[in-house]
């Protein structure tokens, strides 16, 4: 593959870089430390509005829907530049990255007109309803039902692990519309107004202390029939399209975030004392930091090869599972390394004035525990590799 950018890609990168240089709020992470989760979200929404008005929201979307029609390489560049500039994330990330493109692919003209512009601007925030208490790794076992009654569906069920469920105006919900069906058949993808009567949002407190995620309860919720995305009964294919799309740039921002933390850890190691000398002079510390660098490089290079393959073949392959195992497990090892190097200070949280970087390290250590579980567990990823890449018999 050619690792050099072509003139168009270079121009794209330079233009974005210049805009970010002039617009990323200085030291925003420090300023927003004392925010509540809701307060921080409003800040990110305002940031998205700014990004949108400058024409940089939804770069991958076709121009006719308000995007830039960015190539895959340009999408990668976008993610890299945003991360390198330390820019705040975009509030409506699920809408921009997953649901919006799905509406573009499967939506009717009316749906595209109704929903897309508000996704880009962040005026309507989206969440997804996939997992259920009894359908996690075995997603096809989902039971939330949508029964057609004249011109609307009646939805009953429960979803769990919804990112941004507490902030969302709309929900992309996978339901079972054929009660007699099993597994992948008889599923329908519905667009649900979160303000509909019968929708209950409950925060899901995670082990880090806050509630990024929610549980959603649907009790006789009425959803207009025209809110079906794709065809009735075709929900599984729509859902799979989302997952495949996600894997194209999966891990790009994770790798960069990890690299930024590693660079910071190196700088901290210059100052900290360990076994009677500066940590960065301790051979064990040097070995562990270098190993973290090695693993981070492997992530970066694997990502480049995966992107290259998609550019050449047009389709993401099961290598997405290799990438997912890669970044999630490497991050967990890195967080363990960071804890070791930072010593007793590493355990202190943001409430302590002695904490390093306002408790960022104790937080990222705890948060990393979820990496091998979310977005498909490591066990499921290995099953996928075993079955779909290596051709071994199904193990269940």
């Amino acid at each position, binding site marked *: 593959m050619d*690792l050099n950018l072509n003139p168009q890609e270079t121009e794209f990168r330079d233009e974005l870089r210049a805009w*970010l*240089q*002039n*617009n*990323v*709020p*200085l030291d*925003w992470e420090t*300023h927003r430390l004392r925010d509540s989760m809701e307060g921080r979200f409003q800040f990110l929404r305002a940031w998205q509005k700014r990004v949108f008005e400058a024409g940089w929201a939804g770069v991958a979307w076709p121009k006719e829907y308000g995007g830039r029609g960015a190539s895959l390489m340009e999408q990668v560049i976008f993610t890299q530049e945003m991360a*390198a*500039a*330390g*820019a705040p994330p975009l509030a409506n990330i699920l809408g921009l990255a997953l649901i919006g493109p799905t509406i573009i692919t499967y939506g009717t003209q009316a749906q595209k007109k109704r929903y897309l512009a508000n996704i880009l601007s962040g005026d309507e925030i989206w969440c997804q309803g996939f997992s259920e208490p009894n359908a996690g790794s075995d997603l096809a076992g989902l039971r939330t039902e949508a029964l057609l009654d004249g011109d609307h569906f009646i939805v009953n069920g429960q979803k769990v692990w919804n990112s941004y469920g507490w902030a969302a105006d709309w929900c992309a919900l996978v339901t079972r519309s054929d009660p007699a069906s099993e597994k992948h058949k008889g599923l329908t993808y519905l667009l649900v107004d979160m303000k509909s009567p019968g929708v209950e949002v409950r925060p899901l407190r995670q082990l880090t202390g806050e509630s990024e995620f929610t549980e959603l309860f649907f009790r006789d919720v009425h959803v207009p029939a025209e809110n079906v995305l794709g065809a009735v009964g075709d929900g599984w294919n729509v859902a799979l399209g989302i997952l495949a799309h996600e894997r194209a740039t999966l891990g790009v921002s994770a790798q960069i975030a990890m690299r930024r933390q590693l*660079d910071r850890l*190196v*700088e901290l*190691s*210059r100052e900290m004392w360990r076994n009677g000398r500066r940590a*960065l002079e301790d*051979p064990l510390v*040097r*070995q562990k*930091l*270098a*190993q973290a*660098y*090695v*693993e981070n*490089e*492997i992530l970066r*290079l*694997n990502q*480049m*090869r995966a992107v290259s393959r998609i550019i050449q073949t047009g389709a993401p392959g099961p*290598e997405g599972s*290799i990438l997912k*195992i*890669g970044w999630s497990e490497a991050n967990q090892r890195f967080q363990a390394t960071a804890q070791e190097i930072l010593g007793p200070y590493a355990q202190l949280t943001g409430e302590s004035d002695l904490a390093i970087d306002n408790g960022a390290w104790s937080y990222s250590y705890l948060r990393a525990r979820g990496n091998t579980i979310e977005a498909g567990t490591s*066990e499921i*990823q*290995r*099953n996928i*590799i*075993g*079955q779909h*890449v*290596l*051709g*071994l*018999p*199904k*193990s*269940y």
Partner: protein
Amino acid sequence: MPEVRRLMETETAFDQALWSKFAQQGWTGIIFPEQYDGFGLGMVEMAAALEEMGRALVPGPFISTVLLAGTLLDHAGTDEQKRKYLGAICRGEARSTLALLEHSASWDLDAVQLEATSLPNGGFKLNGEKLFVSDAAVADFLLVAVRIEGELAVLMVPGDAPELEKTATPGMDLTRRLYRISFANVIASAENLLCRGKLARQALEAALDVACLGAVAEMVGGIQSLVDMTIAYAKTRKQFGRPIGAFQAVQHQCADMLVVLEGSRSALYYAAWALSENDPAAGRAISVAKAYVSEAYREAGNKSIQVQGGMGFTWENDAHLHYRRAKASEIAFGDAAYHRERIAKSLFDREPLRNEVSVAAD
């Protein structure tokens, strides 16, 4: 594989007929200029070729001769020396190797201590020992790293010099032999000084980088071979009424082998590309690859034998041939810890970069 096993049982693991075939295909001159009868290909092509050789576990002095000695000559030789010695290598007429390590067994150039005493007629006298010299028994000439009045230098010594004693030091890897070389008043003439001082350091570093990259490529091929044989076994070996590959404990080990294979391949081809572009970070990229692949090949060998169970533990099974090669390759040109320290020096031991601060009104 039968050919590999046959060569393993020989004294030197070298086969002239095989070597001639390599020469005919141009492999013995793969990365060297055409004016010296080389094939003129780049590092990426070299990596692809070595990957195939590693997959087949080709025994013998290819890396020592072509990548190590060849690169050293290419960097440091006069035009005359290149036409004579590098040309001979490229045409498949000569084998060679580098004698670098001593008792300290360190790959660091600073660890070279073997003294070459200057003689009045401009020549040099060598007394001492070199260890872990790869394929020395079949070397027509040896390149020896020495100190001349404390300065790093490389001397060329004929392989059949009478004062030079080669003793085999058998190791786990039967496909490539290691030797102790004893020098008892070995005389090298003035024109057999290849380089000294700064040029010697640069040339040795370049040769070690290229040989290291080639070794990594071989290792990647070896991991592929292990993955192939392990999957084949997991699909056909039946226990409890089904192929053992249907059991997750087995399936997940196979998946882990694929994960390290793909990471290894990414690291290898990036390093090869960086070296071919003379990227200033190429040395670091090679160290990343060597550190990662050293452990990947070893662990792939471990898992392959484990998945193949009792059969994996037999002499007849090929997994241990790779397991042995993996250990020797892990050590050659610096192990993972050596390369991690090299990365640390390159990345950490400098002034911290100024942060790219984005300035904007909040």
